[in-house]
């Protein structure tokens, strides 16, 4: 199904939702499984228009729920199609049953997630809990911080997931509103560049009546462990492919991303923020202002959380005195009684020779913007810990304390 051909490079002003749709168009997807939920809906709207206008030749299937969306995706991918789907918030949860079967059968389905808080009581704002709660289901997962990065991450993720050494599904996440609804300048590439970067998808064992194979049959208990081990190895083995693909992306498109973490003003930093996604945009302004006043503060942004770059996180964060983890997710009753990122950070640091003190900040909850003065407030908390050398309070709910 050839469509996105002869497109010339151009700059456009689009939001994250449309950027994701554009990426799906450039990736020349074969099957799209849609079901609406804010804030990701506009992605499917844009794709529906592209299909209707003849810009994209794809099967556009409107499912009756997210569970069906992912079931359709599973089936379509099994037959060898390049599949695009997506959801937000409770929609991500409703499809939960399918995440493990899809990664277990090694189907490189791509799912766009524009985060939305889970209920209660029905908030549109971004919280990463929806996607993060599925983080151990065998999907490659990472967050982008603006529309351009979202566009790029979709292409990169297809290339990684469809690599025969990987064959894993991908969740390409972006913050609802902060990326999905904020417009930015996005460079849409030449279709030739995409052709060079992303070869047509070819699953090694597609369902095909001419060459019968079985997918997902009932198995005996002793057949389970080898399958699980194989999937774990695929996840682990994907790390080398992820690095390779990012490097090649940089060569072809001229935008170079570190696949794992982005560091900002960390050279001589003593206290750093650690976060995922769009709040990095405001964090950078806050850090610049604090730097002007002589504060040694920096930012480490995690770009890929699954597979988790344990070594890189350890290597990066062990340089600092205090790390403030900005969660933007709920980990009720978790290690820190805050979010789930804290545990991921501390576990990575456990074997380090030098360990920073780690705080957990519950900020940006319910999709509230984290404003400059909140970054200043969090920095003060980190500096106090640096000065005293000990943590008296591990988790801070920003906006609820003096």
């Amino acid at each position, binding site marked *: 199904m050839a469509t996105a051909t002869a497109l010339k490079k151009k700059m456009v002003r689009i939001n994250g939702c449309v950027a994701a749709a554009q990426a799906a168009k450039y990736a020349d997807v074969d099957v799209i499984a849609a079901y609406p939920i804010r804030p990701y*809906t*506009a992605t499917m*709207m*844009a794709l529906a*228009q592209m299909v209707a206008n003849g810009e994209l030749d794809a099967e556009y299937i409107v499912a009756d729920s997210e569970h069906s969306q992912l079931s359709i995706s599973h089936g379509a991918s099994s037959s060898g199609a390049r599949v695009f789907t997506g959801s937000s918030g409770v929609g991500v949860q409703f499809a939960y049953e399918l995440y493990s079967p899809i990664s277990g059968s090694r189907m490189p389905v791509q799912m766009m997630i524009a985060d939305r808080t889970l209920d209660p009581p029905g908030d549109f704002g971004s919280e990463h809990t929806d996607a993060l709660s599925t983080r151990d289901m065998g999907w490659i997962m990472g967050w982008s911080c603006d529309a351009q990065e979202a566009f790029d991450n979709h292409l990169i993720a297809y290339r990684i997931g469809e690599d025969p050494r990987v064959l894993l599904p991908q969740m390409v996440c972006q913050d609802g509103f*902060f990326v999905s609804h904020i417009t930015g300048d996005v460079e849409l590439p030449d279709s030739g560049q995409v052709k060079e970067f992303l070869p047509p998808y070819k699953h090694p064992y597609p369902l095909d009546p001419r060459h019968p194979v079985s997918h997902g049959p009932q198995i005996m208990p002793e057949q389970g462990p080898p399958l699980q081990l194989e999937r774990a190895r695929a996840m682990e083995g994907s790390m080398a492919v992820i690095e390779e693909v990012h490097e090649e992306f940089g060569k072809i498109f001229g935008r170079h991303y570190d696949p794992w973490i982005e560091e900002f003003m960390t050279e001589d930093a003593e206290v750093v923020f650690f976060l995922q996604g769009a709040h990095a945009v405001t964090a950078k302004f806050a850090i610049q202002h604090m730097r002007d006043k002589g504060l040694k503060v920096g930012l480490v942004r995690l770009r890929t959380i699954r597979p988790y770059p344990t070594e890189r996180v350890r290597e990066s964060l062990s340089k600092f005195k205090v790390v403030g983890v900005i969660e933007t997710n709920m980990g009720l009753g978790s290690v820190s009684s805050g979010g789930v990122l804290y545990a991921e950070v501390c576990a990575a640091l456990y074997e380090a020779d030098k360990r920073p003190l780690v705080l957990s900040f519950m900020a940006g909850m319910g999709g509230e913007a984290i404003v400059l003065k909140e970054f200043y407030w969090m920095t003060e908390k980190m500096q106090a810990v640096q000065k005293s050398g000990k943590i008296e309070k591990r988790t801070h709910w920003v906006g609820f304390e003096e």
Partner: protein
Amino acid sequence: MSYTELTVWTRGIIMDKEGRDIVNSVSASARLEGKYAQAMENYVDNPDRTNCPTRKYCRMSDSILENELTYENEHPNIVVLVEGTMVKGWDYMRGMPPGGTLVINTHYTPDYMIRFVPGPERLSQLVCVDAAKLADHKWLYYRLGELGLDRLSTEGAAERNKLIAPDIAAPLIAAVIKTTGIVKMETIEPMIANKHAFEMALKELHIMKLSPVAA
């Protein structure tokens, strides 16, 4: 002015496009003039229903916008009411710094309308323009098919009309630009589809000058 906020209050679905056209055209013009500018809709209002109040925002600055991710305009310098009866019922003046501008689509005069404005002492001018009459009084009816799609709460994604300001947004944009000068007339004028209503509005504004005091 180095930093300006424009907030447009409109009616969900039936006048959604009008509100969007105002902030989008002003923001695009500011960017053409080399400023940093952003247009967006109020994210929380956005799964709108027919007639419910919804807000559209534009921000522009000579320097980079550090509050790009903030949901709402907290200190609007300019407020536009796309539908006249919105003058009553909610505090669209909230946060306006002294010296602001209020533009209302109404056939009434500023003398009559000012009694309904909450906190009018912050205004430096109240501008009334009969946008519905200047554009085309049938504007609502020829869009019914499109509005039907918009009722699905598509946030404009189902809009067929690619024209900017083919109707009552045109005179409202004219009113904003003529009375505030936030962007140059020659930058924004080429974007406007309804040139006739735009030109007419420039001549038919009712402007009440006021002496703002600090709130």
